[in-house]
Structures are given as structure tokens and as C-alpha cells.
């Protein structure tokens, strides 16, 4: 809305000074309507103006702006084009602004090439238009074209030597190129151009933080990042902090964040960041504690969802997880992700009717493709376990339509078809899965190899995968399943223990997961499970005490 008002205000001024009589009745009426928030009326008057005066560039300009606000993307392009054609360099700033809007429409449609060419048009109209350089820099940044990004920053800095923006762009480009010293120097130049209460201070501090991180000066980096986030939270800075926590062992990051939070306990952002960091370190008790602290300050369904997932998967308290999910539904009965969690939970707990009811509800409510897809996958698994193979296969195929890149699913479908007695269908599906996977990935996954009976290759594949994700409990658990199905019990037990060590506590899941059937008769398996069940009980008690102390 802000952009629209600025354009309109400039337009009003422009209308008064332009040579063409742009203070026409229709335009005045349109501006009045827009300023009253009545965009539809504004549009009507502007369209009327274009019919009466087809070359009135201002009418197209304002049309493009209003359509941009209303999200009428093709209209932005249409009217924007006419605005540029008829206004051209008469009103360079406004026209360049429209070109920038058009570039954003192209970007939203995924067309980077046309977006860049629109920015070129911006530059042709007005080489002083800042959006040209920042827009192009952003595109280059997203595409990893750091040299080009640097060039844009340079141009900006030449045109606006007193502005810090150009130096921020150049600094971030150098960071992208991993030339951190150069990046820091440029960030310092940006910092030198900082004015009192500069609204862009967070950008400068963010750039410095990234450069310092690259140089390994973590403490300074962290301080800058925190200061940046305190001014204005951006996802890139928060991500930087989390990356830092991964790179820097020990309590430095967490202690710093804890201290920051202590200074302003109402600022829950730091609690969420700390919870993410604890999670990445497999410290689920502290992850949960941070979320409890945040929930004590504010109602946050997303935090409750995260907490419920922790209770279910890592704190051996599925009932508590269920309670939290149902609590969310009391105030938000159309919460699709919660239903998705419930499907999985009820499936694990052997409550298939409840799982199916949740799945049906989820399917009714889900709007986004990804939610529908997840629901189909989970419901398929419920059907599969209920031996309703026909419905399971139907749901899996439907899921594949939403997620055609999920080639592993072909093998699951094949497995289910085999179980249902359709060996011919199973073979056909396995062949299709192999073909799809080879075309896309060039190799078969461990799960695919297992279904094809190639156990040695499956275990090799899982070993390779583990090299990249040793500390992820789900990966260790999956590895245990692969080894178990391949008949390699000792490796399976080793991986299962590792999964437990890294925090896996979903004992319900272990009970029904047929992938582990080869281990069930082994006394070592039961001993291992019981050992961690006891540990889980201790953890529950500890967490209860910590939460009570809050």
C-alpha cells in the first residue's frame, strides 16, 4: 500500500506540473477513490480515462499501480507496458517504478530472464533509479552470480556514493565469493556511511556478521548478528546464527543468546532460535524447555505443534503430544498441519479409525498441494497397515501426482502390490521406479535397492548417506531398518542404538514398524529398547521438573 500511495502522491504532483492535462476529471476521481481505499472505483475511472484518452500514460501508470496492489498480475504487465510507452522519460522515476513492478511480476512467475530485462528497461528510463540495481543484485544473489551482483553494487555506489546500500551489496557479493576480508572492508565502508537512526543499519550489521563469520571471528559475528536482529529480524541473519551454532562447539552461541533474551524476556524470537539450536544438537529436553518458555509468554500454535512433535518423537510422551495437538484444534479447528500430525500419531498408536478420521478431515480442509500430498501419504500408510492394499495404492498414486520427484514411492507401491498378490503389477511398477530414479538421480536409493532385493548395494547406499547425516536420529533409524531388512542384525542394532543416542524415542513406531521384524526375536533388541525406555522415563521426569520451575 505504501508504494501505491507514494506513486499516487507523486502522480498528483506530476499531474499538476505536466504539460499534458493530466488533472483530468477521471484521474482526479480515481485518485480520490484510491485515497479513500476504494480501489475498484479508482480502476473504473482510470479505465474510462484510457478509453477517452488512449495515450494518457498517467492513467496506465495508476492502473498498473493499483492492479499491483490488488495482485492482478497480467494487468500490471499490460498497463505497465502502456505506461512506459506513453510516459517514457517524461516521468522517469514513476515509469522506472512501474518497470520495477513488472520485473517483480516476472520474478513471481519464475521468469528471471524477463525480470532482468525489465530492470534493464528501468535503467534505460532512469539510470538513477535505485530499484534497478537492488533488484538485479537480488536476482544475481539468488542465482549465485556474485560477480554480477558485485558489479551492481559498484554501479550503485558510484551513483550514490553517500549511500551504504551499494557497499552492502558489494560486501554480500564478496561473502558469496568467500572473499571475507574484502567483504568485511566493504561492510566497514557501509558502516562508515551509517547515519543516526538509519533504517538500513540492520543490513550493515548483517553484512558485517556474515563477513566476520567467514573469517572465523565468531564472537564478533554473533554480536553483530544479534544487533542486526534486534533492529530488524531477517531470516538470513537468524540462519547465520544457527549456522554459527553448528560451526562453533560449546556454549558460546547459546550463552550469548540466553543473555540477550534475559535483557528482554518478552522477545520470544531468541527462544525459538535457541530451541532450533538445541534441536540441531539433539538436545530435545532443552528444545522443549525453550518452547515452553515461549508459550508461557505468548500463545503460538506453531510452537505448540513443534512441542507436540518433540513429545511424540523424542520425549516418549505421545499422549502429551496428542493433548497439545487437540488443544490447538480447539482454537483453530481448520489447522491442517495438526491433522497431519494426528494421522501419524494415531497410526503409531495403532488407532487406525482415529487416523482415518483425521485423514478424512485433513483432506476436506487442505488447500495447499503439499498438505494434501502429505495427508495422502500418511493415509496410504494407514491403509497399508490395515491391509487395505487397494486404497493404500490409490493414495500412493495420488501422492505421486503431487510429488512426481518422489521416486522412492514407486518401490513402496510395488511392495504393496506384491503383498496384495499382484506380482505382475508390482514388477511393472518397480521397472517404472527404476527408470524414473535413474533418469533423475542417476542411481538407486537404499530403499529402492532393498525392494529390488539388492541388499548389499542397499547397505552400501545407506552407508554413503550416513556420512552426510550421522547425527540425525531419523537417518540412523532408517539405516537400522535397511540393515535389519538386509539381515545384518549387528549393524542394525548399532544404528538403532545410535538413533536412540541421538534422541529417537518413538517407541510406538518401533512396535509396528515391520522393517525391524528381523530383530524382534533377538534378546539384544529387547534389551536395547528397554534400556532407552528407562532413559526416556528419566528424561520425562527431568523435563517435568524443569517446566514446573518456569
Amino acid at each position, binding site marked *: 500500500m505504501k508504494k501505491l500511495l507514494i506513486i499516487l502522491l507523486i502522480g498528483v504532483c506530476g499531474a499538476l506540473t505536466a504539460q499534458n492535462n493530466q488533472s483530468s476529471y477521471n484521474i482526479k476521481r480515481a485518485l480520490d477513490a484510491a485515497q479513500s481505499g476504494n480501489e475498484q472505483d479508482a480502476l473504473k475511472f482510470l479505465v474510462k480515462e484510457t478509453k477517452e484518452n488512449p495515450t494518457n500514460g498517467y492513467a496506465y501508470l495508476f492502473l498498473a499501480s493499483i492492479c499491483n496492489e490488488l495482485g492482478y498480475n497480467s494487468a500490471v504487465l499490460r498497463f505497465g507496458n502502456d505506461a512506459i510507452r506513453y510516459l517514457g522519460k517524461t516521468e522517469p522515476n514513476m515509469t522506472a517504478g512501474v518497470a520495477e513492478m513488472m520485473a517483480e511480476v516476472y520474478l513471481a*512467475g519464475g521468469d528471471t530472464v524477463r525480470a532482468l530485462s525489465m530492470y534493464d528497461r528501468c535503467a534505460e528510463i532512469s539510470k538513477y533509479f535505485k530499484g534497478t540495481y537492488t533488484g538485479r543484485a537480488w536476482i544475481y544473489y539468488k542465482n549465485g552470480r556474485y560477480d554480477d551482483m558485485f558489479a551492481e553494487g559498484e554501479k550503485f555506489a558510484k551513483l550514490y556514493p553517500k549511500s551504504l546500500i551499494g557497499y552492502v551489496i558489494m560486501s554480500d557479493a564478496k561473502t558469496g565469493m568467500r572473499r571475507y576480508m574484502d567483504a568485511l572492508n566493504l561492510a566497514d565502508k557501509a558502516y562508515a556511511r551509517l547515519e543516526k537512526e538509519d533504517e538500513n543499519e540492520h543490513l550493515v550489521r548483517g553484512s558485517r556478521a556474515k563477513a566476520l563469520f567467514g573469517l572465523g571471528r565468531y564472537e564478533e559475528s554473533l554480536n553483530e548478528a544479534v544487533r542486526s536482529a534486534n533492529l530488524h529480524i531477517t531470516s538470513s541473519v537468524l540462519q547465520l546464527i544457527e549456522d554459527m551454532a553448528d560451526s562453533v562447539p560449546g556454549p558460546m552461541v547459546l550463552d550469548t543468546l540466553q543473555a540477550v533474551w534475559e535483557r528482554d524476556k518478552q522477545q520470544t524470537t531468541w527462544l525459538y532460535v535457541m530451541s532450533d539450536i538445541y534441536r540441531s544438537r539433539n538436545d530435545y529436553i532443552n528444545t522443549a524447555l525453550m518452547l515452553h518458555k515461549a508459550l508461557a509468554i505468548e500463545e503460538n500454535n506453531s510452537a505448540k505443534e513443534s512441542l507436540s512433535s518433540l513429545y511424540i518423537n523424542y520425549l516418549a510422551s505421545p499422549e502429551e503430544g496428542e493433548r497439545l495437538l487437540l488443544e490447538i484444534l480447539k482454537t483453530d479447528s481448520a489447522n491442517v498441519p495438526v491433522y497431519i500430525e494426528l494421522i501419524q500419531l494415531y497410526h503409531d498408536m495403532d488407532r487406525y479409525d482415529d487416523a482415518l478420521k483425521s485423514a478424512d478431515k485433513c483432506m476436506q480442509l487442505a488447500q495447499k498441494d503439499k498438505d494434501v500430498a502429505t495427508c495422502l501419504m500418511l493415509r496410504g500408510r494407514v491403509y497399508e497397515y490395515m491391509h487395505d492394499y487397494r486404497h493404500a495404492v490409490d493414495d500412493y498414486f495420488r501422492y505421486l*501426482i503431487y510429488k512426481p520427484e518422489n521416486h522412492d514411492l514407486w518401490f513402496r507401491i510395488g511392495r504393496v502390490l506384491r503383498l496384495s498378490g499382484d506380482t505382475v503389477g508390482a514388477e511393472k511398477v518397480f521397472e517404472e521406479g527404476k527408470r524414473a530414479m535413474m533418469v533423475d538421480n542417476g542411481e538407486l536409493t537404499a530403499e529402492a535397492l532393498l525392494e529390488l532385493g539388492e541388499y548389499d548395494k542397499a547397505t552400501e547406499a545407506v552407508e554413503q548417506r550416513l556420512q552426510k547425516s550421522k547425527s540425525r536420529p531419523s537417518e540412523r533409524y532408517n539405516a537400522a531398518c535397511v540393515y535389519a531388512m538386509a539381515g545384518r542384525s549387528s549393524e542394525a542394532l548399532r544404528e538403532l542404538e545410535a538413533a536412540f543416542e541421538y534422541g529417537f524415542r518413538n517407541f510406538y513406531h518401533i512396535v509396528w514398524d515391520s522393517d525391524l521384524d528381523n530383530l524382534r526375536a533377538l534378546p539384544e533388541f529387547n534389551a536395547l529398547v528397554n534400556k532407552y525406555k528407562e532413559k526416556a522415563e528419566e528424561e520425562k521426569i527431568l523435563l517435568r521438573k524443569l517446566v514446573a520451575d518456569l
Partner: protein
Amino acid sequence: MKRIFLIIPLACLGLAASAAGKMSYYFQRAEEAYGQEDYETCLNYCRQGVEDNKKDGYCWAVMAEIYSKAAYGRFAEALEAADNALASLKKNDTWWVAFVHAIRGDVYYKIADYPASKEAYRKSLSIKPDNNTVIASYADVCATMGEWQPAAAEYKKLLKNNPAMAFVYAELADCEYHLGQIKEAKTDCNMAIYLSDDENIKSHIVLSKIALDEHNLPLAAKEMVRAMFLEKGYEIMGDTLVGLCPELMTAAVINEVEKAPNDFDVNNTAALYFFQTADFVTCLYYLEKAYELQERPELNIYKATCYQQLDMFQEAQQCYLKVLEADSLVASVYNSIGVLQHTVGKDEEAVLSYKRAISLEPDNNEYYRMCARSLINIDLDEALHYMDTAVMLSPEDEIVTSLFNRAEILRIAGKESDALKDLNDALAYKNTVGEDEMVYVYALLGEREKVTAFADSVAQSHNTAKHYEVELALIYAAMRDKQGTLKWIRRAFDTWSRSTALFRSHHRLRFLADDNDFITLLSYGDSLRLKEIERLERTMLKAENVAGATEIPFTRQGGVCQVKCAVNGLPFYFVFDTGAADVTLSCVEADYMLKNGYLTDADFMGKQNYVTADGNIHEGTIVNLREVRVGDIVLHNIKASVVRNQNAPLLLGQSVFRRFGTVQLDNSRSVIRFVSDGE
């Protein structure tokens, strides 16, 4: 491509003519009539204008424009008028000259003379290079001719000045696809989708083709089905994807329906898909849903066809009668009723229905043909008489069908030489009709190799939608080839057909009437059909069963209530026991069911401890009961315990009851009422 034909606002024409100082009286009158959409009057004035002044280029131009409209189809006249206009107009009258060239381009395009069309558009553009409509038309004709590079260049030119034209991105994407510029093609498809709020059909078709080339079948299916739903018709789909991955196509269709389950067009399109893929049960389901949303009589025709495919003739007839209630003069419906009556052996009634159809549409050769077929068993001479009329009335694309049908009847009547004459006359059309029609002629002439070649091509193609299996069975029957006939009947049953009545009643198959193999095969077909009818009942019940209720009687024996239910089709008397957690069977029933195929190994789910009423804990085997029928309601996948006690009673427990919202015991009427929430 969506053709954009020139629609000239007459104000522009008038202004342009006026500006040139050439607006004749007749042109002005023509302009008025055009504005009122009275094209006949407009033409008349134009004719008068050119009679008055043969050099009135504007009148010639408007005449050319009107003639070129598709509804008139007077293309030769359009071209002649255009030529006269060009000869009369001054060269500096650029707007008009360009306009006339563009009209010529449109006309040549319509008569598929693409090189001439391209040249005409090029001339128009050489005079007025910025006319977007002509640029689009020029690009389109280049694309039609496979000249992708120039087509792409024109579309890009168009986009430069008109960046919001979603369809142009899609057309450009198609050109890029053919030029192998796949990344660009995908980007432009996505832009077309984005700018049109996902209303652009072509972009999805192109994305589907790309996905198929990349062997991404799920994505190919998804995109093609999306295109189908936007188009609201099956015609847009090739049969390739249906043949390659029918499960994925069905999954994609269901996904689309679920996005808008209460939209008439969506349900109708889904029904069309399932109709084309011969899943008549699912088709009926969606037809019912569509009908609930909008009671369109034509839906009953599709429903009737589906019921006929399942040999449910009463239901089919009911549907046809509903169409006639809305409009009693629909000849095709009487014809269809005739076909139905013929199939069930009621030839006399069939003849009456055909005659009614003929009375309503006396020029329709098909009705005479169908009537003749029914008359074969009643009056051969009259059959031939009707067949003669059919032949007489047949247009060129149907003459072969009429000729070989008559040849058959002539053969039955013992008139072999006349039959041969008809078949030879039919052969004369072999270059103009499809192989699927000529193959009947070959069969009747005994040209076995040609029949076999056609059969082989069907066997290898993905052409599941055309359902040639039944046709081939009848073709082999025409040659009295038992093996070929039975092979294709079997194939029909194994792929899609669920109708046995057709084979029982067809005159060509009489030679197999007492053949045991044929009888056995039809029994096989009957069993498939019955399963399909059961599926239909279940599907319809599920559709209705949002608030389904059923009552079943109970008896009291030894102080307990006993109810009759069916488990996997096998009837049992269960003790109604709300205190039991599961359904319980004794090992005796379980053994019986396993030995006789009512249970399979896949139904066994493991072991579980359970507590009996006396408080003791026993171990039992858990089984999955695929179907439990309680009165009219069918439940699926019910967990049951098998007790190792030969004398254990069969208990109906909570694993059944909790599928219902309410369970009520009515002692006065001795019924138990189960009310379902829907499964």
C-alpha cells in the same frame, strides 16, 4: 492456437473510409446493418454498392470480411471479394489494404492452404507491422507449418508490446519445445499459467509433453489431466498416457475432483474420463454427482450407456425414459432404446422404437440400419428394404458400414452375388475410410491376413479407449472363426467389457450358441459383471451413506441377541456383544474360511492377548476381515480375533460398533438399528 479472427469495429471502418473521403451511401448503409449484426442486409448493401461502382473497394472489403466468417463458409467468394477490393483500393489506403490481406490470410488458413495464408499475413504485416492480431495469426500459421523459429520470433515480438497475453507465452512455449529449448519452454508455460490464473490449457499440454519426454509419468499425467479439466472434455487427451499409466491418470483425475468436489463441470469431466476409459461404475458415480448439482437431461444418456455396459437394462431404460420426459422428440433416444430392446431379444419392440426414431429423423441412415438388424429375425425382406434405404441415405463416411451390413443380410437371405457386389463396392472406398471400418469388409470377403494385421495392430497399441476388442470378436465371428472370436471376447472381458448380453444376442455369434467354450467364457464374463455390479452398489452406497442407517432383525437365544451378518460374503450368526472389543471368530470358522478362500494368508495380522468375560487372558490370532455386511451397510477392513476354542461363540464387538455413530436396540420390534457416519 486460439484463432483471433479480425473483428472490425465498424466505427474504425467508417472513420477510416471517412478520412479517405470515400464513404459511399451503400457503404454507410452496410455499416449500419453490420452494427446491428444484420449481416445479410449488410451484404446486400455491399452488393448494391459494388453494382453501383465496381471500384468501391470498401464495399468489396466488407463483403470479403463477412464471407470469410466461419458461419458462412463462403471462402471462394471471400477470396474473390478480397481480390476485387485489392484491385480497387488505392495503395496509400494502407489500413484497408493491410486489412484485406489479413482477411485473405484468414480464409487461406481455414481452407488449410497454409503457404498462401502465410504469404497473405506477411503482406499485411509489411504494410502494418504493428497489428497484433495479424502478428499472432502469422505466428500461428508458421507454427502450423512446423516453422518454429519464425513462429517463436513473432510471438516474442508480440510479447514485447503485449507482455500480459498469457496465451502467447503458451504458444511461444510450444515453439520452444519443438526447438528443443526446454528450459525456456517450461518458463514460458509457467508464465502463461501464472498470468492466466491457471486457465491456460495449452501450457499444461506442453508441460505434459515435456514431462513425457523426460519420462516423468506422474507429472505428465498431472499436466494432461489439468488440461482436460480446463477444457472440460476428454478429446484433448491422447490415449498414450492412459495406456502407459492408467493408475496415474486416474489418480490425477481424482486429485482434480477433490479440489472442487461440488463443481458440476468437474464431476462431469471426471465422468467423461471414466466413460472413455470404460470404468462405467466410477463414471456412474460421477454422473450421479453431476446430476445432483445440475439436473441436465443429457446426463441420463450417459448413465443409460453405462448401465447398458453392465447389462442393467431396466436401469438403462429408466434413464432413457427420463430424457424423453424432458423432450419426447429426441430421435437418438428412441434409437438407443431400440438397441437396448434388441440386446435383450425383444426385436419386435425394438423395431417399433427404431421406427419412431425414423419418423423423427427420416434422413438418418443409422436408424434404418439398426431397424434392419432387428428385422433379420422377423422379416428378412423387410430387413433388406430398410437396409436399402440405409445405403441410399448414407453419406460417404458411413457408406462402407451400410454396405457391409447389407452384404451380411443378403448373405443370410442366400443372395451371395448381391452380397459380393456390395462388398466390392465397399472396397472402392478403402482409401477414404479408416481401417477399422474396412476390416469388416475384409472379414466378409474372407481376407484373413488383413483381419489379422488389423488385430495385431490393436493388440500392440495403447489404444485402450477405442475398445476394438468387442469389434474384433464380432469380426472374427463374421468369419466363423471360433478361436479368434473367443480370444477377443476374453480379451474384452479382461480389459474392460462387462456385458455378456451383447455376445449372447448378436446374430453373428449364433454359431457358437451351444459351444461349451463359449458358454464357459460367458459365465466368466458374468462373474466379472456381477463383481462390477457389487462395486457399483458399494460405490453408490458410499455416496449416499453420509447418514446411512440400517436395521437388522435379531433373535434371542439363550438370553443373548443373535444377528445375521456376512463376512467376506459368507453369512454368519453373531452374538451382539457390546462388551466385546473385537469381532471374534472361533478357529473352526477361521479354518473353513481359509480353506475355501474367504480368508487368505495376507489377512493374518499377528497375535494379540485378549481378556474374556471371566477375566482370563488368552492369546488369539488377529485377522483382517475385508468386508463385513451388516444389513444394507458394508464395512471394510474390520479387525477380528480368532479364538483357539472350537466352541467359542462368534461375537460382534466394538470394532464393528465404533464404525457407526449410533447403535440402538429395539426390543419391541426385535431389530437393531445401526446408523452410520459414513465409512
